[in-house]
């Protein structure tokens, strides 16, 4: 279970690294968050079954993830209005 979570986490990281599109990078971040959730729940279920701490941690992460996605998509839409693109390489006003 934890090995699965590790694999998914690093696949998400690779998605963030190799893609140059803001939306697909956001999808990589979602994959990483989900991997962390699996980890919390698995630890809760197999090692500490008498309490629900991992469960609530996962629940809180799940509440924060949509907020993060909503803010990110608002930013992406704003960037698209300004630059007419969602590729990270073309949004370089602040870089130079």
């Amino acid at each position, binding site marked *: 279970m934890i090995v699965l979570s590790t*694999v998914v986490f690093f696949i998400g990281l690779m998605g963030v690294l190799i893609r140059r599109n803001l939306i697909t990078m956001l999808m990589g971040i979602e994959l990483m968050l989900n991997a962390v959730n699996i980890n919390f729940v698995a630890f809760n279920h197999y090692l500490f079954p008498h309490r629900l701490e991992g469960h*609530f941690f996962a629940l809180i992460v799940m509440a924060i993830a949509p907020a993060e996605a*909503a803010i990110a998509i*608002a930013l992406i839409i704003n960037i698209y209005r300004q630059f007419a693109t969602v590729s990270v390489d073309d949004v370089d006003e602040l870089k130079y």
Partner: protein
Amino acid sequence: MTGPKIIFFVLAAAIVVFSILSITSRRILRAAIFLLFVLVAMSGLYYMMNFQFLAAVQLILYAGGIVVLIIFSILLTSQINSRLESPKISHLLSGAVTAIGGIVLATVTILQFVFKPAGKGAVDTDIRTIGLQLLDTDIHGYALPFEVISILLLAALVGSIFIAQKDKT
């Protein structure tokens, strides 16, 4: 091989395969649909571990909310048939090296560690227990994070509306 083990391996294989497809697919809408499959399979894992409420929340929030939001933003910002250009070879190489190195390192560390279960007797994870504990102010209660999250969600709502609005000037 018992039944739960078979189900676990099927779900794990689905998660890994679809997440790899989701980050390598050239069509961005297909990538979003593969992400949806990953999230649904993860909620199946939660069902397998007897966390029904968490599985339902996963289905509603991720599969119902975030994927729809992502698909909306894809449709707003790109053409439906457009293909992404394939990533640069240097990016691909560095990303793959980082990911595989991280997987190997973390897996070796995990497999060397001996996990000992602490505590006996599973609590039941029905909605009644979860709700009571979520609004409890005792030592194992989660009333404060619950309230903080509600403030955070309100702030995120107002902030995203403010960011995404058109310029009035």
